[in-house]
């Protein structure tokens, strides 16, 4: 197994996630919390994020359907999702959450509906990309977790 090649691919993939704005510096903070005692901490936190965020998105979806024009309720649910996005550095998703909240503030139903679709799209895209990233890390084995220097987008 060519671990060095896999490491390069992982580094390149991570750089791409930062360059395309999917992730921000907070993701580096999460990865920095990994150590020998918790070598898979970042993946575990990301797994928790997607478990929670799926539920929160479902809450928003139900609220949009069951509570028409209840912008306060919609906003409250989206605030939780935005918070979670912030915590793991899910930058593009966080931006769409903020956009939704802005539309709530304006009382703009159509805007809310449109931005909610974007939130869901970004959620799906991020999930796919992070799954691929962690899959690659797993393929490269522990060598990647211990030796891979902070990638572009993460400060030393």
């Amino acid at each position, binding site marked *: 197994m060519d671990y060095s090649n896999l490491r390069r691919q992982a580094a390149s993939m991570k750089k791409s996630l930062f360059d395309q704005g999917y992730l921000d510096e907070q993701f580096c903070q999460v990865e920095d919390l990994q150590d020998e005692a918790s070598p898979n901490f970042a993946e575990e936190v990301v797994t928790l994020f997607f478990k929670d965020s799926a539920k929160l998105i479902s809450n928003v979806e139900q609220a949009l359907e069951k509570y028409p024009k209840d912008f306060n309720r919609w906003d409250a649910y989206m605030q939780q999702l935005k918070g979670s996005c*912030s915590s793991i550095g899910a930058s593009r998703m966080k931006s769409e959450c903020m956009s939704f909240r802005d539309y709530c503030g304006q009382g703009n139903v159509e805007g809310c509906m449109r931005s909610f679709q974007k939130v869901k799209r970004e959620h799906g895209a991020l999930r796919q990309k992070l799954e691929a990233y962690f899959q690659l890390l797993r393929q490269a084995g522990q060598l990647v977790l211990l030796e891979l220097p902070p990638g572009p987008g993460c400060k030393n």
Partner: protein
Amino acid sequence: MEVTAAAGACCRGRGDHHAGEEERSSAKVVVPVGSDGAEVEPCVIAVDDSSVDRALVTALLRRSKYRVTAVDSGKRALEILGSEPNVSMIITDYWMPEMTGYDLLKKVKESSKLKQIPVVIMSSENVPTRITRCLEEGAEDFLLKPVRPSDISRITTRMLLH
């Protein structure tokens, strides 16, 4: 990954050394003893309904060598506080269902048994009136999420002087 604890049990931090051990050499700290006579290590209770944020704040605190119990509600935190003998700090999210971090802060400060425990509030929103309200109610500090290692350093340094 999920950190939960039965009442009276706190999870050990990483490493052999805890902040409590280091504190004893530089500040006089009275460490309670359990029923078996063994010293009870100080424990931080982390309260957040978000599993992501619980995991993050727990990891940050453990990196600072604290023993941490993470719970998902103020109600659960009060249960732990009723049985855990040596809580050195509570760090809680502000916005939680049923009991907010502010409600928890108030209950702690109204209790003769608990009021000496420092309480730190975390929030993802920078709302000045919220911050003021918490500080006036006796919160030790107010952290904006996502919480950073420097935030934990600041509050733990303050705890050493507490």
